[in-house]
């Protein structure tokens, strides 16, 4: 993997890269298929995977930095900034402010669901908006929200905070959350694709999970650093995580992860895995490392294929398109790559 000529083979042969000049905070493929990246200089960049060599659009979305980024509910992208704004960027780069959520306040988390729901958190508050951008409700938490996630159906939204996470029914008349308690500070959060488990990443270099059926706790520890990325495989059998010097994947079947050891992929270089993204269908994980290496690892076989060589800064954003044919990544130095992995 240290041979950069071969490590960059996929990026060179089947991809394109750009130096965008600012920290890549987040990336996502929009529901109509474009790649969007939210950057530390406040811009949103948009690439068309059907014409990767063409010009990437630059949209001035925020005055400051983009802090949170996702695909919007129908098309285009949603971003939150340190200017306190929640902004939608259309596929053609047109920018619309959906809400101004406070002065000197940061919009730290955003999420959207294809039902039209949008969510944005500012401090302890989680604001929900409908497809037209009208505010539905504001859900308040005991402390600042560290991460948010919709379930697959868009019926529930989960928010992590200090001493646990809150699980809310979006359509409920009475806004009373189910409180998932566990002492400590919780940040990144994920709901399993079948909606049965909630997992958070904690300040203490460990994950915590709750099986919703019976409230059973799951403790997954042993990480040398904080986990920032949690990603379930398409059918939810595995949870891939960053934060170790390998890609740590936990089994969510056969009674796991309780009492089961995780599988470690692509380790051994002593470099921390900084980002993971599971393929939307296959049991394959894309992983980015602190030295800039990007690779694909197949969970069943442990087989590893390099995508991009180290050297452009720690991987801070990583994601697949819905069809699983394109993978994109971004780094803290502002380097971004888009690779076509479809059968030819």
């Amino acid at each position: 993997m240290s041979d950069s000529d071969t490590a960059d083979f996929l990026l060179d042969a089947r991809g394109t890269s750009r130096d965008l000049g600012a920290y890549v905070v987040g990336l996502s493929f929009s529901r109509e298929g474009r790649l969007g990246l939210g950057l530390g200089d406040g811009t949103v960049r948009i690439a068309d995977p059907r014409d990767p060599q063409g010009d990437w659009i630059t949209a001035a979305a925020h005055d400051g930095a983009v802090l949170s980024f996702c695909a919007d509910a129908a098309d285009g992208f949603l971003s939150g900034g340190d200017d306190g704004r929640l902004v939608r960027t259309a596929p053609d780069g047109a920018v619309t402010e959906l809400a101004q959520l406070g002065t000197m306040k940061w919009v730290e988390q955003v999420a959207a669901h294809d039902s039209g729901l949008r969510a944005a958190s500012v401090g302890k508050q989680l604001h929900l908006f409908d497809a037209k951008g009208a505010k539905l409700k504001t859900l308040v938490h005991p402390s600042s929200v560290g991460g948010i996630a919709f379930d697959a159906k868009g019926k529930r939204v989960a928010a992590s905070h200090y001493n646990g996470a809150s699980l809310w029914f979006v359509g409920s008349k009475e806004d009373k959350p189910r409180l998932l308690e566990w002492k400590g500070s919780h940040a990144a959060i994920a709901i399993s694709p079948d909606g049965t488990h909630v997992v958070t990443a904690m300040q203490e270099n460990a994950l915590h999970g709750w099986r919703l059926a019976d409230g059973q706790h799951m403790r997954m520890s042993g990480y040398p650093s904080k986990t920032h990325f949690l990603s379930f495989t398409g059918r939810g059998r595995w949870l891939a995580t960053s934060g170790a010097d390998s890609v740590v994947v936990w089994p969510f079947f056969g009674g796991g992860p309780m009492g089961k050891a995780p599988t470690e992929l692509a380790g051994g270089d002593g470099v921390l895995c900084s980002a993971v993204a599971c393929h939307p269908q296959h049991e394959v994980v894309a992983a980015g490392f602190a030295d800039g290496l990007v690779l694909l690892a197949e969970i069943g076989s442990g087989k590893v294929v390099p995508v991009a060589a180290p050297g452009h800064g720690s991987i801070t954003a990583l994601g697949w398109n819905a069809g699983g044919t394109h993978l994109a990544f971004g780094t803290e130095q502002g380097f971004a790559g888009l690779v076509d992995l479809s059968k030819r």
Partner: protein
Amino acid sequence: MSETTQIPVTVLTGYLGAGKTTLLNRILSENHGKKFAVVINEFGELGVDNDLVVDADEEVFEMNNGCICCTVRGDLIRIIGGLMKRRGKFDGIIVETTGLADPAPVAQTFFADEDVKRATRLDAIVTVVDAKNLPARLKDSKEAEEQIAFADIILLNKMDLVTEDEAAEVERKIRAINPWAEIRRSTKSAVPIDAVIGREAFDLKRILEREPEFLSGEDDHEHDSEVMSVSFEVSKPVDPEKFNAWMTQLLASKGQDLLRTKGILYYANDDRRFAFQAVHMIADGDFIGPVRDGDPHKSKIVFIGRDLNRPQLRRGFEGCQAEG
């Protein structure tokens, strides 16, 4: 990431009305060509004029790492993570705390969180005090005392409101709590920016560089406050294993009462000096270069804390000397 890329962070503490925000605005408005990101709290009295101001909630979290007094500022961890996304747009970070804030969680955030530690370094804790009202504050507020105990630089402000005798008495009270802080007298928080910014007070290389100032007859004088400081010196070389064992045990059992600890040690059979510091239970230490010619080879340790048992601490430190 190399040390030079770490962004310096200055923490501004001080009781309500002491002149903190005036100092902050002075730092920001002075023509120094530097850009700062400023983290303020939502109850600030005065406006702050700066491009990059973040309103923080002062959320203090316990870390479950087996250390009972390890609290950190959760909001600060998130804010520093966010600021790193616009790296290169500013030269330093200034964190202003509320008047009632305990400085420990702020300081500990810079040692306990690895992401924060990688991106930033704590430059100094600057405490602004009101020369006229400090004696009263010390009587009725635990926080006022802690803010002095934690300080590297103390701005003795509102000097226009006190006589020289009153000022000297306030300085005596400050010294009884904190022997190493540099005291700067000021009126309307008017001090040169380099008196408070770029101090590298937490740099191990500069630990106890200034001779701590203890009051004469320190053992006898009555204390107005619970917080006190003690210092010990030994001339025989220190056994690193004994010192580590003693310090580990001491911080574990007494860390809640030990606010700040600093030491310079001369180890047996080593021609380098070892510097050591701790904020409550969180310790940090490293070799800081060779012993210099004419160096008296005296190992020294200074504690600031509550209920310090002087004879016990002295025996403990003396017991760390190497045999023979």
